[in-house]
């Protein structure tokens, strides 16, 4: 008997049963790597290799190889840092905030989105690490460890130190949350494994999971509380990232609007990245019945909302800079829009404010091609947002005699390539060896939102 809801489209199409879910998702893990996977891996590894060369030179020579100068002391490194942390936010939003709101459409995308979060946060952590010059001393400088200077402790009044705690907590909690969700699915792969090695590896990874009702009940309670902890956590992370700028006295940075503006920008860019990855994954791995057009449409709606918040924030900033009556503040914004970096400002405005508004049109937000292109446009725009905020606020500082421009060198670009190569290599490895869709959760909604419902007897 077929029952289709008239209110909401089904979340799993194609009349899938629980056993089909297992087969469809495990097929990726058990089969030989596909041609498209190998090609993707080859490209990622090439990018990673170029980036690795740049990174080795950077660590050997020091950060003098970057294009920084004494006026612009922060540029691509912190731009990339904020960009990557922002991308990470969507994963937690999907797995934690949508769990608290009981949004079932999260279930087929949360696993991959959270993997994206974890890899993106690792990429983000690289940049402050590299910028410290001596990466191997980073831990020692950034953490309150006893040392031979006194002990002279780290400065707990500094937002840069808050960042250390925020990002490392965020990474740890996301990784734990992700792993807890993976355990039942690893057990599924373990029980299907044919050869000894995968039996052994997935057996260890599944922690002896046996699906007992008592364990499931505890698991649900752990998931709920982790979601409850991760929700304020994810909001705090980008808030603290924005404090890096907002607590300074640089015109263009010194604004109270930064925390909400950064958080919505983060979710905006994160959803765009989830969209990019999921559209490719759904196509290459044949997940069209799990990641449906309805999922894509819902994600696009979040992109319109957060994109519009970002747009309003840009306009508010402009208005407040004029209304404040502070000449330095007014000049900072005039310089952004009409100064030598006008092209970066208008790229940001076009990509972030205008392009997501296209999603108001139903045809565009349900089109896969349009969603894919716009998701990349949004991520370019969000990269430029950080570049604009950081570089244009710095390059014309207090003394016109020290005004300068920032020109990236090969090593600035190389570090960025390194993070991109690392991210995509990790994501491809995840897509091959881990279950990309949370099988256990998807199975639990088959009966209520599958397209075909088998009634018992």
């Amino acid at each position, binding site marked *: 008997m077929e029952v289709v809801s008239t209110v909401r489209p089904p979340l799993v199409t194609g009349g899938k*049963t*629980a056993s089909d*879910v*297992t087969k469809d998702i495990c097929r990726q893990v058990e089969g030989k790597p596909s041609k498209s996977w190998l090609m993707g891996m080859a490209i990622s590894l090439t990018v990673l290799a170029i980036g690795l060369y740049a990174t080795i030179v950077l660590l050997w020579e020091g950060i003098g190889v970057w294009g920084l100068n004494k006026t612009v002391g922060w540029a691509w490194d912190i731009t990339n840092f904020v960009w990557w942390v922002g991308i990470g936010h969507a994963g937690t939003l999907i797995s934690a905030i949508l769990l608290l709101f009981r949004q079932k459409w999260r279930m087929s995308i949360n696993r991959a989105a959270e993997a994206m979060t974890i890899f993106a946060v690792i990429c983000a952590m690289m940049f402050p690490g590299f910028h410290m010059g001596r990466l191997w001393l980073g831990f020692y400088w950034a953490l*309150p460890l006893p040392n031979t200077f006194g*002990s002279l*402790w780290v*400065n*707990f*009044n500094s*937002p840069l130190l*808050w960042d250390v*705690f*925020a990002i*490392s*907590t965020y990474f*740890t*909690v996301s990784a*734990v949350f992700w792993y*807890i969700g993976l*355990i*039942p699915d690893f*057990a*599924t792969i*373990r*029980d299907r494994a044919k050869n000894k090695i995968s039996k052994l590896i997935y*057996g*260890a*990874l*599944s*922690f*002896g*999971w*046996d*699906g*007992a*009702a*008592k*364990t*499931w*009940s*505890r*698991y*649900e*309670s*752990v998931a709920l*509380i*982790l979601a409850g*902890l*991760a929700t*304020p*956590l994810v909001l705090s992370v980008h808030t603290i990232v924005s*404090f890096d700028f907002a607590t300074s006295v640089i015109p263009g940075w010194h604004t109270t609007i930064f925390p909400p503006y950064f958080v919505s920008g983060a979710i905006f860019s994160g959803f765009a990245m989830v969209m990019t990855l999921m559209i490719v994954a759904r196509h290459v791995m044949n997940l069209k019945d799990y990641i449906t057009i309805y999922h894509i449409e819902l994600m696009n709606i979040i992109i319109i909302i957060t994109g519009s918040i970002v747009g309003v924030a840009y306009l508010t900033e402009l208005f407040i800079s004029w209304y404040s009556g502070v000449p330095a503040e007014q000049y900072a914004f005039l310089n952004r829009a009409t100064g030598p970096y006008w092209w970066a400002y208008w790229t940001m405005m076009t990509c972030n404010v205008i392009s997501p508004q296209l999603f108001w049109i139903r045809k565009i937000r349900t089109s896969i091609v349009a969603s894919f292109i716009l998701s990349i446009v949004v991520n370019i725009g969000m990269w430029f947002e950080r570049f604009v905020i950081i570089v244009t606020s710095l390059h014309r500082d207090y003394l016109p005699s020290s005004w300068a421009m920032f020109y990236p060198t090969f090593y600035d670009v190389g570090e960025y390539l390194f993070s991109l190569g690392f991210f995509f290599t990790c994501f491809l490895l995840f897509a091959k060896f881990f279950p990309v869709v949370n*099988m*256990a*959760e998807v*199975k*639990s909604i088959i*009966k209520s939102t599958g397209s075909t419902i088998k009634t*018992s007897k």
Partner: protein
Amino acid sequence: MELNKNFLVGVYSDPDEVVSAVKKIRSNNIRIHEVYSPFAIHGIDEALGYKRSRLPIAAFLFGMTGTILALTMQFWMMGIDWPMIIGGKNFASLPPFIPVTFELTVLISALGMVGVFMVASDLKPYKKVKLMDVRITDDKHVIAIDLGANKGASEEIKKLLKETGAEEVNEKNFD
């Protein structure tokens, strides 16, 4: 948990049937060893008479530990051990210590609770798993009844399992 016992294992496909089966079996005064499923079934813990998990309490206590630890650490380091004048501000004051306090509260609460969950549910990488039925990680739900705890009622239980919608009733023996 000792598992070298004899079990009767009823295999079901529909999660809702499992819940009603559990209720019926329990109302017949038969003790259920455990239900095993590929995903969490709504209402199964109430049907089995399980109490609500106390993990939220563990999370709260670990969280408090984190808060206290973070505040003590910061006030001691900045206020007592090596006071420094930074930007002409107080040596130690609460507002700038809030972000780190919040992060450590969340960190220790999350790690502590997950640790307790792992220990309570006996989840560990080197554990040898004993499954009632290999299909419970795929698409089947299983009600396992310990024959040792329900002596002499084997035939009756078999009939009851079938009546409540079990597709198969198997015997499982862990030696």
